[in-house]
């Protein structure tokens, strides 16, 4: 959920930067710097303890999603942006010279190429965000780490619990990682190197 919002947020930010939308462009770059240069834990505390102070009631889960989206959005934006920048501007000109509108040029020519360039960074970000969920335990959200600590508290089986923790993270993340490299290979086969 948080990651999905992060992808959307990142996409919108990248588009704003690509088209150099006035004012919004500034807002986006401030956001990106702010979110990339502060740790997730700090961002979470900010949302979890800060928002209620200004009268916004939240729960741990919403805070988790918001924190992940806030952090992930900027990383995703950078991934998309590098993809968009990798498409040569003369490709755009070539599409325009065929009478395509700006929207058509983006949808049929630039975006498909940009996405296949940004896939590696994109998958790396997803994995990075999944791992970052381990700090959620700090705001008492039931993530893997929190559960593991819980179990250690209950049964005093520290070694076993921590070992299982590693195994579970691998079970969740390895398939995503493998899917990522498969996708990357297919896209590389289908495009580029003109």
């Amino acid at each position, binding site marked *: 959920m948080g990651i999905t919002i992060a992808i959307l947020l990142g996409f919108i930010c990248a588009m704003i930067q690509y088209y150099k939308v006035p004012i919004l462009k500034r807002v986006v770059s401030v956001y990106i710097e702010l979110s990339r240069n502060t740790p997730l834990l700090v961002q979470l505390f900010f949302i979890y303890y800060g928002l209620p102070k200004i009268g916004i009631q939240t729960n741990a889960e919403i805070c988790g999603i918001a924190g992940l989206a806030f952090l992930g959005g900027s990383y995703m934006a950078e991934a998309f942006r590098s993809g968009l920048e990798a498409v040569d501007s*003369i*490709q755009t*000109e*070539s*599409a*325009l*010279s*065929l*009478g*395509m*509108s700006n929207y*058509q040029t983006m949808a*049929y*020519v630039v975006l*498909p*190429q940009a996405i*296949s360039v940004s896939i590696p960074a994109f998958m790396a970000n997803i994995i990075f965000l999944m791992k970052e969920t381990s700090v959620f335990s700090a705001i008492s959200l039931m993530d893997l780490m929190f559960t593991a600590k819980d179990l250690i508290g209950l049964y005093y089986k520290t070694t076993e619990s921590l070992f299982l923790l590693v195994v579970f993270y691998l079970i969740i993340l390895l398939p995503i990682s493998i899917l990522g490299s498969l996708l990357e290979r297919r896209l590389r086969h*289908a*495009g*580029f*190197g*003109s």
Partner: protein
Amino acid sequence: MAEPILALKNVTKHFGENTVLDDIDLSVHQGEVIVIVGPSGCGKSTLLRCVNALEPIQGGEIYLNDEKIDIKSKKLANLRQKIGMVFQSYELFPHLTVLENIVLAPTKVQKRKKEEVQQEALALLGRVGLLGKEGSYARQLSGGQKQRVAIVRALCMHPEILLFDEVTAALDPEMVREVLDVMLNLAAQGRTMIIVTHEMQFAKAVADRIIFLDGGKVLEDTKPEVFFEAPKTERARQFLSMFEFNVVKSQVEKVSS
């Protein structure tokens, strides 16, 4: 004489302090083949890019069939459909097959039926000797093949005028010919074309008119026989002499003796 298809009136273009096009007047009539030659940096390519409104102009006007080409115009995409452009670096879309490259704009922009456009595309590919390549991706083709596909892609939009921007400059010598042959064929069909090239033999063979551009000015606008045999300006003579190898040879002999 009939109204020109394309008319440039006092077109001026600057890049910063640099004047790249200086008060250019040019009219192109139906079926004419215009070849633009000149030393590099003289504004040849920029001229083509201005016609297609890929570059803004700072002065003058460009008309296609009495419609003004304006980079801010809402109808710009409409006008661009009538102007086919082929680039030096081919610019096929690498994520699409040859056939998809050709069919994309006619179906999306002109909303024509896919089957109809595909048939036309295949027929055109056949004419340029590329039947059987429709499923390939750009990176599987040679430079000459890519450029022929790019020409077909432009043709499939049924443009009224074709612009060629040094389309053979990036090709190996043996591939230059196959692309030039396609262009000679188009000229023979009575297509209206503006060609920027460094291939002087080809220019002589294909042109109805030669435009010699230097320092952003049209220095000569004349028939190829006149331009190649008896150019009026000293600059044109100097330019042409660079393509004369016996001149070079005599200079080499002079230096060595």
